[in-house]
């Protein structure tokens, strides 16, 4: 961001940003602009997703879903937000008023601040922080602070259960998540989100996920851990309706209640963007190799379509993941508290630990075998590239094809058909 403003100051205004006194003011304006832009993006995405998820859930459950407000009900989230804003902001008499009021802001802050480093496309992010991933992992921990505060401050037993469950769950699952994050970091040799993406490639077999079995397993552990951190089914214990009413937000109403849901739905973007960055090649456009991109960068002129294409590719990958998460939510039952803890501490943590070691060893061997070529994208035709392609076929395409065939059979066996005419 700073570079962009510097560039504007030099080229458009003809000043030197180091000495020009107005530069600081311009930085401030730029920061606020980006802040408003990202917050708005987060809010609108969460709102649209609330509508989209309800429509998807309705399709899964053979219902229709919200389709009244605006075309296909797409403006439903505005109506909902309006309703929530107009509702009384009820604060229980016996609650801890101050904590009760500030808890939603912790949740919102933890959610919005992650957008500071999240990439949206080639060179499209608020900052390109060199400890980007570390920042994401630490800032998302704020969400659980808010949830814990709300559970405690509500002075309701159900809310307390929800808050404690959330604390136990999120803190536990940070550990396997933090562990398997190391796998792509080892492979890329960087914590910077953009550098991690640049170490991958456009084609699926150039993604980290399909480069080694360890990264492949890491993807699923990371996915599970992120589901748990985002309180999504099958880990929606903190807000398990059938057990503890509404969990930590039982006592909330009005827009404070809305904030929790805003953050929850918005977190789907954050989760998916992190997964896309780490394992699915980020904004890398297929058929444009890193060599070509580096050549463009050397001339100082990257074509505009590349910016747009990279943003489109990234958004597409994120949306596919978001839809998978939504799909999982409306398919699976919820696991129990002790099972949730077992899964984390008995399975994910040891496996994650092993994967980190294996990934490190593999990377070391690969460096010994291929030398500098092991860094970044492999040359087409090399043994390493062929291995990646073979692994992609076995681990990616074959399960996908088997799953698609099975689904097709399940649909036709009950006399159903794929029909979107009444969408």
């Amino acid at each position, binding site marked *: 961001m700073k570079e962009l403003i510097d560039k504007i100051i030099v080229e458009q205004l003809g000043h030197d940003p180091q000495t020009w006194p107005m530069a600081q003011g311009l930085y401030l304006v730029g920061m606020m602009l980006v802040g408003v832009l990202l917050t708005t993006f987060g809010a609108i995405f969460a709102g649209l997703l609330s509508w989209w998820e309800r429509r998807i859930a309705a399709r899964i*459950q053979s219902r229709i879903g919200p389709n009244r407000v605006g075309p296909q009900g797409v403006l439903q989230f505005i109506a909902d937000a309006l309703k929530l804003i107009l509702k009384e902001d009820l604060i229980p008499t016996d609650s801890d008023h101050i904590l009760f009021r500030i808890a939603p802001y912790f949740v919102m802050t933890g959610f919005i601040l992650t957008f500071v480093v999240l990439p949206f496309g080639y060179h499209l992010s608020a900052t390109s922080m060199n400890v980007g991933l570390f920042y994401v992992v630490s800032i998302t921990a704020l969400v659980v602070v808010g949830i814990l505060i709300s559970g405690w401050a509500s002075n309701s*037993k159900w809310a307390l259960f929800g808050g404690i469950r959330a604390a136990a769950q999120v803190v536990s699952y940070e550990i396997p998540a933090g562990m398997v994050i190391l796998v792509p970091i080892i492979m890329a040799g960087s914590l910077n989100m953009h550098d991690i993406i640049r170490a991958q490639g456009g084609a699926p077999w150039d993604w980290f996920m399909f480069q080694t079995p360890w990264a492949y397993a890491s993807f699923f552990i990371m996915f599970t851990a992120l589901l748990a951190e985002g309180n999504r089914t099958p880990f929606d214990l903190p807000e398990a309706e059938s057990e*503890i*009413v509404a969990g930590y937000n039982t006592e909330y109403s009005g827009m404070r209640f809305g904030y929790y849901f805003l953050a929850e739905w918005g977190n789907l973007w954050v989760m998916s963007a992190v997964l896309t960055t780490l394992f699915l090649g980020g904004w890398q456009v297929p058929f444009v190799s890193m060599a070509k991109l580096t050549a463009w960068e050397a001339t100082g002129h990257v074509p505009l379509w590349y910016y747009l294409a990279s943003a489109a590719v990234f958004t597409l990958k994120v949306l596919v993941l978001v839809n998978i998460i939504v799909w999982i939510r*409306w398919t699976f*039952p919820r696991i129990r508290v002790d*099972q949730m803890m077992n899964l984390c501490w008995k399975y994910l943590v040891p496996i994650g630990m092993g994967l980190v070691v294996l990934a490190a060893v593999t990377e070391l061997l690969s460096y010994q075998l291929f030398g500098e070529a092991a860094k970044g994208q492999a040359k087409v035709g090399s043994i390493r590239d062929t291995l990646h392609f073979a692994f992609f076929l076995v681990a990616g395409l074959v399960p996908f094809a088997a799953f698609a065939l099975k689904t097709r059979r*399940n649909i036709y066996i*009950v*006399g159903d058909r794929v029909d979107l005419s009444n969408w």
Partner: protein
Amino acid sequence: MALDQLVMTKFGETAGEEMILNMGPQHPSTHGVINFVVHADGEVMKKAVPQVGYLHRAIEKIGEIVTYPGFMPYTDRIDYLAAMFANEGYALAVEKLLGLTVPPRAQYLRAISCELNRIASHLISLGSMAMDIGAVTPFPYALRERESINDLLEALCGARLTYNFHRIGGVGFDMPDDWMPLCRKWLDHFDRILDEWDRLISFNEIFVERLAGLAVIPLEMAINYGLVGPNLRASGIEFDLRKAHPYGAYPDFDFKIPFGKAYAGAYRGGVVGDCFDRFYVRVLECRESVSIVRQALDKFPPGEFMAPKVPRKIKPEAGEAQSRIEAARGEMAYYVVSDGGERAYRVRARTGSFLAMGIIEELSKGLMIADLVALIASLDVVAPEIDR
């Protein structure tokens, strides 16, 4: 703390480290207005004491105030999810008092309507159980099929929930001419839906893991607590009133009695009489009910749908009669005493849900709160049937 002290003094408990939690009467998964006083230490319960009576409407007393046929609509309200059975039980008891013989066509219509209603009731039970475990999607699937049953029953008797179809001496209406093909078509469709149900939820890994080996009721305990119906059969006994004490048209049909066999599988910790058995026995019962309805449609006899000599004013001789039927929630028994007048001297209904409530306190020791929800759902209790 005020609430805790109130609850403690009310139920004479001593204060300790445990947390007392009032689950219900307004709670998403207590299946109606039931209250559970949960004594919990963290997530683990020391016990959960059910408090019943929030939905008591004195239906049995109403039976002493209204005439014999006039009580029939009230029986619908005893169990609104399986109203046919409540109708049938009462009709059977009064018919015994009067010494009436019901024509075979009426008996077949009773069997068909009851078995369809059993499927509808089990669908709600299975769907809400899945929802209590956290899977929301199976519930609308179950409701969708139940809607079709409601359509069929509406075509048969004009009502979708409180049928008032069975009458003293027969049934209210004959089967409509075009009803049989409709019913057959739906039965063929429902076979596939049950397979889909098994794929969707019954053998979902998380679902089975949640229920396997949970809240096991050994057979002896089930008998001691007087459990009935699917809850009893899940503990591993083949006892079904339709076979043990056949009534109506049931001797004509060939069907199996599903009972608990640790369906979850031993490697998952499945034990005979666990929550998964209670769930899966109901799925299997739906399959048997489909087969019974098919057989009834095949053998559907001609004739009258109402006994010819039912008096306009029903005034049984002084005496008493009892009827037992296999309802969706287990044995439902009616005991009717007549003093020779137009109104019953005493009507008593014995229902399955009430018996199932008794065992919860014993079973809930050491369970987690999430498991209590699964336990309540697996016993398939319905608030109006508990309290009447």
